């Protein structure tokens, strides 16, 4: 079992307009075998949390820690964190010319293996074909340049394909359901569920209860104003769907402005 602990995490972003504290003390503990969901209003820091866990250099940790099995990840660059077992399905995956999808995934798998023991072409192709089939993806997708010209939905599916090929210990899925039609959402859920087991944990960020109907979470967290303000079981998501964030905020007596309020 692997454990990921987020400890009183404060994160700042520096841009032209100056510094802005976005995460204001996030606490979260996840174990492999568990699926966690995070919901929360727009602009509340969910993507910031996922990017910071992964190690995006644009986000500055000002205090707190991120620990994988007790080891701090803060001084590790993104590639080392990935090899240590983290995976982030991004809200906006990059497009890369000249590098095929298949070639990229093979490089990612080999990055986790000793230099003198790369995955055999045959094993790789076998696994790739299985996963393409599982995700209803055309084989041609593997030979296209990485995300180049992919539709929004194809990109999301491709993130899950990478997840299945790389088999990380923890996968953070940032709005993997956004822009997906209902069938595609089911396919993506099927992919994630196929990973479920004692050696896999996931943190699923979503705005919609619907995804959680297909991937049932063990724990649901609500994030507002840069903090996790409430955690509960799958029922919490249903309640939110029914009542919205304003209700929860007022119930908790929080002084937070939600973006859709005037």
């Amino acid at each position, binding site marked *: 079992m692997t454990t990921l602990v987020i400890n009183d995490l404060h994160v700042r972003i520096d841009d032209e307009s100056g510094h802005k504290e976005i995460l204001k003390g996030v606490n979260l503990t996840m174990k492999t075998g568990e699926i966690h969901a995070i919901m929360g209003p727009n602009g509340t820091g969910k993507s910031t949390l996922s990017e910071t866990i992964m190690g995006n250099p644009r986000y500055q940790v000002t205090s707190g820690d991120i620990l994988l099995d007790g080891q701090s990840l803060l001084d590790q*660059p*993104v*590639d080392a964190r990935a*090899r240590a077992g983290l995976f982030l399905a991004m809200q906006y995956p990059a497009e890369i010319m000249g590098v095929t999808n298949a070639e990229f995934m093979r490089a990612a798998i080999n990055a986790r293996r000793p230099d003198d023991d790369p995955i055999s072409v045959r094993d790789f192709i076998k696994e790739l074909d299985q996963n393409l089939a599982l995700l209803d993806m055309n084989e041609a997708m593997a030979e296209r340049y990485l995300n180049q010209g992919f539709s929004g939905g194809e990109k999301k599916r491709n993130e899950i394909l990478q997840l299945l090929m*790389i088999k990380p210990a923890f996968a953070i899925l940032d709005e993997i359901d956004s822009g997906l039609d209902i069938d595609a959402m089911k396919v993506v859920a099927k992919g994630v569920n196929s990973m479920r087991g004692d050696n896999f944990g996931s943190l699923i960020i979503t705005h919609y209860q619907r995804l959680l109907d297909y991937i049932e979470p063990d724990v649901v967290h609500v994030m507002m104003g840069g903090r996790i303000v409430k955690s509960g079981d799958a029922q919490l998501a249903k309640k939110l769907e029914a009542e919205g964030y304003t209700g929860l905020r007022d119930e908790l007596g929080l002084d937070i402005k939600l973006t859709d309020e005037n």
Partner: protein
Amino acid sequence: MSKTKTFCELSDLQHYSQQLQEPAVAWQMRQQAWQATMTAPNPSFAKINYRPWANLQGQLTVASQAVPLPASTAQIAQVAGQPVQVRLSTEAQTAGVEVLDLVAAWQQWPDLMQQYFGQVMPWTSQQLAATHYATVNSGVVIRVPANTKLQAPLTWDFYQNGTGRQLNSQHVLLIAGADSEFSILENRRTLGSDQPSASIVEELVLLAGAKVRFAAIDQLSLPTYLARYARLATNARLDWALGIMNDGDVLADFNTDLNGQGSQSEVKAVAISTGRQNQGITTRITNYGQHTKANILQHGVILSDATLIFNGIGHIVKGARGSDSQQENRVLMLSRTARGDANPILLIDENDVRAGHAASVGRVNQEQMYYLMSRGLSKDLAERLVIRGFLGSVLSEIPAAEARQILTDTIERKLIDGQRHRDRAQ
């Protein structure tokens, strides 16, 4: 023992020419070229300082001892300053392809030499060219007969000689007969490192309707003036695919003249500069004939403290109606201390034409790096993949699969070397 000096003494040149038993015309050319080195202007390449290449030195003597030719499977092979070695394929022999050493060509093909040697490059126009024609001490002349169609490429391996005192001034002259069709795969490398500089000039003459694909992989380590000049007759077509993978400071002067009506040329070049290397690449296509088509596509990558300048020059002269001149020059800088420029120059003296250009100087896209690294790829590997994508848009356009593969492998090796160098320095 003769003392090492520059070619400068005219009497040395005369002595050398006599030793080679060159005909009077050849000697007159040397003499004129020698005079031009005093009077001709410095070469002018925008934003490139030509001086590092202006110092051609070494002895001009007839080679007494042969430098062993590295194992080469090429049909034509030569170490600068030495005789050429020719082993044409059966296909090329049957087709009537003929190859002579430059010295022999002056004796056996005097008319052809007078007609073409020094006719493509204006050799008294600037000092580096004049220096070459004064000192040329080795070379090869290739004739491909009219209507010849070759399936397999003609392969050429040329070596600069940095192992001794001999001056390096090598010349290639190719005459592609009317309606001939073939491809060339050229490799250039360096032996040793004992010479301060070298000079290479290639002249390509394409007669009417000739179609030539010229792929070259340059891996030179001496400071070199490397000129490739071509002249196209009516409806001829020349496609260049150039991998500028040198380790030394190279001044590349690529020039194509679209003389004949309907002739066309495309230059696809990829270049890498690493370490403290300085490369300046000027690629010019001039549309003289009507309905001629020019396209220049150059992508380059710069690591560490290196410099890489691309000049693309598209020139449409008055009267070249219905012509087209396009170009794209891009460089990618991988370090803060890299210096690069992509400089498109369009000179249009005719109204009824089409012309366009694109240029950029940029850095590796950090979003792309982050994405690749977030899957566990090391920074160096991620960087190589992004670069491969950047160069790939030129590479994928190179028609010859063999040349493409060699070039891809060379790029990979060069990038790994460059990164290792950088990572050690950090």
